[in-house]
């Protein structure tokens, strides 16, 4: 049994300790907002916050984060909109297919929490998740818009 605290709730999970956190979140906890894209921490579709740090959950053994606070896209806001990053994403109509967007939003929130007014260069460095539809330009604009909103991400 693994103990995991996700979005403020502690779960006892009957999975092997080396099972990647991504799959425990998706298959054992049934929360599917966090996506599988590559399995080798390249694409970032599986990004969650582990003690506030944006982390690619496909390469994190679930047994190694029992003591951590884990937040997924489902835990970012209760209504799916009230985080200023989600609000900016909505106003700029960022998603296309949307598959990578959970990870993009989680990465953007982590960036804005550590750096509330990021420059383009800061965004370049922090936002390394892959989007195949090519929403990068709107992602950049939305991060600036969220920063300008003056609300805490």
């Amino acid at each position, binding site marked *: 049994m693994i103990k995991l605290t996700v979005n403020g709730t502690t779960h006892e999970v009957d*999975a*092997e300790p080396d*099972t*990647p956190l991504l*799959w425990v979140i*998706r*298959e*054992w906890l*049934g*929360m*599917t*907002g*966090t*996506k*599988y*894209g*590559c*399995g*080798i921490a*390249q*694409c970032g*579709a599986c990004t969650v916050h582990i003690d506030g740090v944006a982390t690619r959950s496909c390469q994190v053994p679930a047994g190694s984060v029992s003591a951590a606070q884990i937040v997924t*896209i*489902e835990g*970012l*806001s209760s*209504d*799916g*909109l*009230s985080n200023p990053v*989600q609000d900016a*994403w*909505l106003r700029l*109509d*960022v*998603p*296309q*297919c*949307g*598959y*990578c*967007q*959970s990870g993009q*939003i989680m990465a953007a929130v982590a960036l804005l929490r550590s750096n509330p007014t990021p420059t383009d260069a800061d965004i*370049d*460095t922090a*936002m*390394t*998740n*892959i*989007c*195949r*539809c*090519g*929403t*990068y*330009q*709107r*992602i*950049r604009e939305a991060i600036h818009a969220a920063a300008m909103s003056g609300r805490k991400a």
Partner: protein
Amino acid sequence: MSNKMALRRRSFLGSVAALGGGLALGWRVPAFADAGDQELGIWVVISPDDTVTVRIARSEMGQGTFTGLAQLVADELDADWRNVQAEYVSPDENLAHKRAWGDMSTGGSRGIRGSVDYVRKGGAAARAMLITAASMLWDVPAAECTTKLGVVKHEKSGRTITYGDIAADAAKLPVPTEVTLKTPEQWTIIGKGVRRLDTFQKLSGRQVFAIDVQLPDMLNAAIAQCPVYGGTLRSFSADKIKSMPGVRTVVPVDDNAVAVVADKWYQAKTALAALPIVWNEGAGAMVDSAQIAELLKGGLEAKEAALGQKHGDVESGLASAAKVIEAMYASPYLAHATMEPMNCTAKFADGKVEIWVPSQNGDASLAAAAEAGGVKLGDVKVNKLHLGGGFGRRGQQDYTRQAVLIAKQVPGRPVKLIWTREEDTAHDFYRPITQCRLRAGLDASGNVVALHARLSGQSILAYLAPSRMENGVDRIAFQSWTEEEFGYKTIPNLLIDHAVRNTHVPVGFWRGVNTNQNAIYMECFIDELANAAGKDPLEFRRAMLAKSPKHLAVLNAAAEKAEWGKPLPAGVFRGICQNYGYGSYTAAVAEVSVSPQGALKVHRIVAATDPGYAVNPQQIEAQVQGSFVYGLSAVLYGEISIAKGRAVQSNFDTYPVMRLAEMPKVETVIVPSGGFWGGVGEPTIAVAGPAVLNAIFAATGKRIRTLPLRQHDLAHA
């Protein structure tokens, strides 16, 4: 305003409390409407609370068709866009209704242009029914009634009724077959950059993609396919893994794959990795990229080739030319790499099949499921879900077939098959590998007097749809180069032909298909000719497009916005190009710099497009931006190479794609000339590569003719 209108607002706001401005933003949560007796024809359902549900037959994979098609219907309906939502028509409903909703195939940038007439008529018919019902209620002539924003009004008396209030009466009326469509001046929703209908759920993890489907008693499957194309499964040792956590069974799939079925997918994947498998790799195992390159090279010189376009006499034109320029270009195989890997969930029970599938072609998914299940078409139920990317890959149904074949071996329980990224990269229907030899003659004034483009390479139709080959000719190979598409009509002697050279590697439709390579070959070569003629690349093209006013207008639009000719900062250089494909005209100007060490930076792109009518400028802009990411990912990095008969690359570490830091600022110029409906999702990709490659030449003097770019050293003095 009726009472229920207020009720609806309350319940709506109640469900998204504290949002503030939710209504003003115009989003809706898509949900399957309970049509009941509120169905006005086949495309529109209007609920008593005034919600208008537009049915969509095409697939949403990011390109925005869900929203664009709804706009077309809602405009003819005179709906209030804030009340509009969309839902899929399921392929089994389509089948049961004699394909009343038409073609479900979503490819070739046909979503709008392939359905515009009949979906608009659907909206107009529903509007006519609402007017007739209201006029009967009021006992007035229908001609005295008007519609606006979801309300019917009798102008003389000033009486009004909302669509929701009259829809039940309207639904009882016959659906008119003769309707008059609006003229473009009358449009109120078409042409507006309304927000997408599918955004909200994609911000919160609530969007259920097929990979996210969870069903009672569901099992999960991971699959390994013979790594060599055309090879087969010889044997596997299931006993070795049967005691591993969660494993239920190990099953063969067709003659070339094996799947592990387990409680959880991660368990299935883990056990599969430990499963001893023996393959019959077959003759394909002897093939590598160098051999394929040689095969194609032979095609460049071959006597026999399929004819694409010909006029005049190229050979005598070349013989009479003052100067002959020749160049050879090449493009590799490319994988689609959709973010959501291939997957499908299937259930086989009591001789019936149900699937949950991300598909660009619902009808084809249904047919594949029926065939794999050995059941009648009418015994298949298909649940379509939004796709986590398609790009042409999900028109093929190999993964759908596999899911049903696996489910049939575990009857009564749904099974979700997910491919690993590695499997997805290794078993694609790749963009075909091609080479192109171009020869052109210039007269003493630098005019092009003859041009021969010889393509050599793989045919998509020969692999996927041999019945569509016409006497050995694959017409798709000539995309952008057919007589109606090709803009350079001033060339007196022209020959375009294709030596079909097929291999054992599977090929298919990759967003933009052959327009991408063809545009790189032609537009970079035209740049070479301009350089040889000592002419400005823009002026050179302008003269050659003298007989193609729409091509020319889009080229000029891009050049003007980019201020072609105006000095740039030191070290920054421009490239330009144009193309026509999928019914739309496109052109682009790229601004790049290349450091002396060879580091490329794409600073700015100006992209112009004429799609005839622009249904949603915001979404066109999104598609244009995305086209540069997809197109430049291919140009900068994309390559699937073959060794021992199989793909060398396996994941994003070996098949890299563009990331945000490399994204240039893309400025989109939409110049809709009206009178036609062109595609949007694909046409711009074709101009991404040549604009940047021509700018690289301007910056470095290096002409890149073989892709990807990362194989080349751009260092320059």
